[in-house]
């Protein structure tokens, strides 16, 4: 009789442990789901077909005065770009310092990519801006995950400049590439 009672007690304890483990797994799964839905910042789509709705986080006003817009033929586009051909990557800060300006006289919005050109011909996007409206400049951008693999040193890359219609947000049929950007990587 006592043996039967002990066996039942053991069975109950095992059941409780299994239930507890299952509850913990369910709680962890719920936590991951909540994080994925509400807190995870997804990697931005590279060279999107439509300009990101969110303006670049680190964009600052570029011009003291607003310039007259450039003339543009119907359905076409016009941009003015002021830039420096150097970029400084700080791995510890997860940021890249650079200078790229979309002056107020531009018509189109811009998305800027800093692309590392590797010796084997492959290219890696190190940073991509949000939408840079006319009249704004960017002097720093957050690095993308791929940049963490870089070793300290000096590299050559390019600015890939994507232009977007300011009314429809559609990507223009034309894009720009500014070659020979000197990229310095430090810890």
């Amino acid at each position, binding site marked *: 009789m006592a043996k039967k009672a002990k066996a039942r007690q053991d069975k109950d304890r095992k059941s409780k442990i299994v239930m507890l483990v299952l509850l913990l797994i369910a709680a962890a799964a719920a936590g991951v789901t909540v994080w994925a839905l509400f807190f995870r910042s997804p990697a931005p789509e590279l060279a999107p077909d439509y300009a990101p709705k969110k303006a670049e986080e680190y964009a600052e006003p570029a011009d003291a005065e607003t310039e007259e817009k450039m003339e543009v033929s119907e*359905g*076409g586009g016009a*941009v003015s770009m*002021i830039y420096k*051909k150097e970029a400084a990557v700080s791995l510890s800060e997860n940021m890249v310092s650079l200078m790229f300006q979309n002056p107020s006289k531009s018509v189109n919005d811009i998305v800027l990519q800093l692309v590392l050109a590797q010796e084997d011909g492959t290219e890696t996007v190190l940073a991509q801006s949000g939408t840079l409206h006319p009249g704004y400049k960017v002097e720093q951008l957050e690095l993308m995950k791929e940049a963490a693999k870089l070793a300290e040193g000096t590299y050559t890359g390019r600015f890939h400049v994507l232009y977007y219609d300011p009314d429809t947000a559609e990507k223009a049929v034309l894009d720009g590439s500014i070659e020979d950007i000197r990229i310095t990587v430090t810890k």
Partner: protein
Amino acid sequence: MKKRRFSAALTAALAAALSFTGMASETKIEQSGGTASQDVSAVYTPVKEAEVVYSVDIKWGSMEFTYTAPDVVKTWDPESHTYSETLAGEGKWTHEEKANEIVLTNKSNKALTAEITVAMLQNYSGITPELSAANLSLKDASIGATTSTPGTASEASTAITLKGALTDKTASKTTVGNVTVTIKDAEEVQP
């Protein structure tokens, strides 16, 4: 008394003159009436070259082209009792004025080059793009510029035309290719 004062003043003047000479020159005057010389050296530090400021404008047309297919001529064959179809001539690509133009303006204090490439999408590889100029040279806008005289911005342009047939009969404002403008520093010409 006057003589003593005069000789004292003369001695002081000579001593002062000798000491100034000694300061001006490291070479010594060994005897009375001798001379000494010392080179005067100067170092020229050139004015730091102005930092390159890149400033480029790009304007482009709508890049919208319209393809008009050639007329199809139907001919009745009385022997086989069928029609045969033949194309009368070739299809024609047209566009609005300036819709096919790309204009670059260089306002940098650096000469630049721009390479224009047109890549057709895979489904439209039968269409061949042609450029009036694939490589554009843009002069340094600072040539002749001073603090009071402005330099001149350099402008260059190219135009795209299409050849070949558009086989997609449902195409309506369909993207058939992309244009890339690649900007580089112009190679320095060695004097």
